[in-house]
């Protein structure tokens, strides 16, 4: 059951200021409409994880850790490794996050990160099979939201991609029916570098990378995930605004330009 949630109370003064500034193509924090906040990224910071990345966009901080285990494949894809994404909106990240089982927000975030990685074919799941139909590598991607200040989507996708980039896995070999680890650790090969860009929409205006107040004041959101060659592999319109198709197409193109910049900022090299 999805139930309308009370919108966070945003003071009328702030929301008016936001709208007035928007009419002049300006934003409260001085950014231009298509400007991202400062993006920072650290990788390999968790010793016990096979891969990790801490990404912050402005004040939003997301930590992603990857763990790899052996397991059984999904019944309908017996010749593929398993990729599974979970997201936790930690209560310490925001007064609006409560402890408990994942709610629709964390589920929808996890599923979008999953689609961004899976549909971009960043990981060759077929190379992660030890014994077809029986034993495969299972990659767990856990998205840990530490500080929520707007735009969890882009921060999480970026952190997941970077975490995978520095993930190493123990190479197992089959002896008879048993997997044996012979000491070789290999990097997980990333064949794509998915990056997402998210817009907040206000009537016919849209801004990229909404911060917390902008997110509370906006009507809706749309996120696009791109691959390195400019194809799009995941799109998600969220929130309650409605958009014309020409707005969608404009944002698609602007997002692509920004995605290229972001990839370079976090150190992706051709």
């Amino acid at each position, binding site marked *: *059951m*999805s*139930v*309308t949630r*009370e919108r966070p109370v945003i003071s009328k003064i702030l929301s008016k200021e936001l709208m007035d500034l928007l009419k002049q193509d300006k934003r409260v924090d001085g950014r231009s409409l298509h400007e991202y906040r400062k993006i920072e990224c650290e990788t390999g910071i968790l010793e016990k994880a096979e891969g990790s990345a801490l990404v912050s966009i402005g004040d939003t901080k997301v930590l992603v850790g990857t763990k790899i285990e052996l397991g059984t494949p999904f*019944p309908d894809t017996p*010749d593929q490794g398993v990729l599974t994404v979970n997201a936790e909106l930690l209560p310490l990240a925001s007064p609006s996050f409560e402890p408990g089982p*994942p709610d*629709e*927000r964390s*589920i*929808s975030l*996890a*599923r979008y990160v999953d*689609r961004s990685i*899976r*549909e*971009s*074919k960043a990981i060759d799941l*077929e190379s992660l099979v030890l014994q077809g139909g029986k034993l495969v590598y299972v990659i767990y991607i856990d998205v840990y939201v530490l500080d929520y200040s707007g735009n969890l989507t882009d921060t999480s996708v970026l952190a997941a991609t970077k975490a995978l980039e520095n993930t190493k896995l123990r190479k197992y070999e089959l002896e008879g029916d048993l997997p044996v680890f012979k000491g070789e650790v290999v990097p997980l090969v990333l064949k794509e570098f998915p990056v997402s860009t998210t817009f907040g929409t206000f009537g016919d205006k849209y801004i990229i990378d909404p911060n917390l107040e902008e997110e509370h004041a906006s009507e*809706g959101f*749309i996120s696009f995930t791109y*691959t390195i060659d*400019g*194809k*799009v*592999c*995941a*799109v*998600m*319109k*969220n*929130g*309650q*605004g*409605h*958009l*014309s*198709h020409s707005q*969608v*197409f404009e944002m*698609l*193109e602007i997002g*692509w330009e920004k995605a290229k910049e972001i990839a370079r900022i976090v150190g992706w090299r051709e």
Partner: protein
Amino acid sequence: MTERKTKLIDERGLRLDGRRPDELRPIRIELGYLKHADGSVLYEQGKCKILAAVFGPSEVHPKHIELPDRAILRVRYHMAPFSVEERKSPAPSRREIELSMVIRNALEPIVMTELFPRTVVAIFIEVLQADGGTRVAGLSAATLALADAGIPLRGLVAGCAAGKAGGTLILDLNDTEDKEGEADLPVAYIPTMNKISLLQMDGMMTREEFKQAVSMAINGNMKIYALQVASLKSKYTPPEGQEGGEDQ
């Protein structure tokens, strides 16, 4: 690369079920299907069978979630255990939780919730038989059920999915095309406002293909909208053109 199990587009450019790339599946609408609900519809699109029911506006329980200035919406998108090939557990899956939210967000702009503060409008979408495109078919059905219930709406929402299969852009994917094709793009559209209220995509497409697919979906939605309007109007046909009368 895995070998494609089935050829999705044949040499004549026709799809598995014989449709042209831009052809919708046949749609059947039966309004007021459930007598108990305030509004309901049995909606069929190809092999998809969806039941949508609306209750309300009514008082909110528990009271603390009511909103002082508007009605809240409760949306449940759910697939019956027998709706798919392999029995699905009745417990809500992560996908159903996400889609319930996505559908609710797509309906919020059109329901005039500000007219009924402190109440709830409950919308139930039960997929009895699934064959691709259930979230958008569910949305088209939910809109009809809302109109059938007499809930004031700013407009109607029509939904269908476009996508790519066998290298070709196609409209209204069935389950096989969704599972084995290259991309799936559900779009919901409000024709009277010329606005998109739901848009998702997974798969791989060039940006150009994305734009073409969105336009294709919007065209499909215009056709579905015409069917929605026709079905609502047919429930209320004044006999022999008499209108709005009061006799003396």
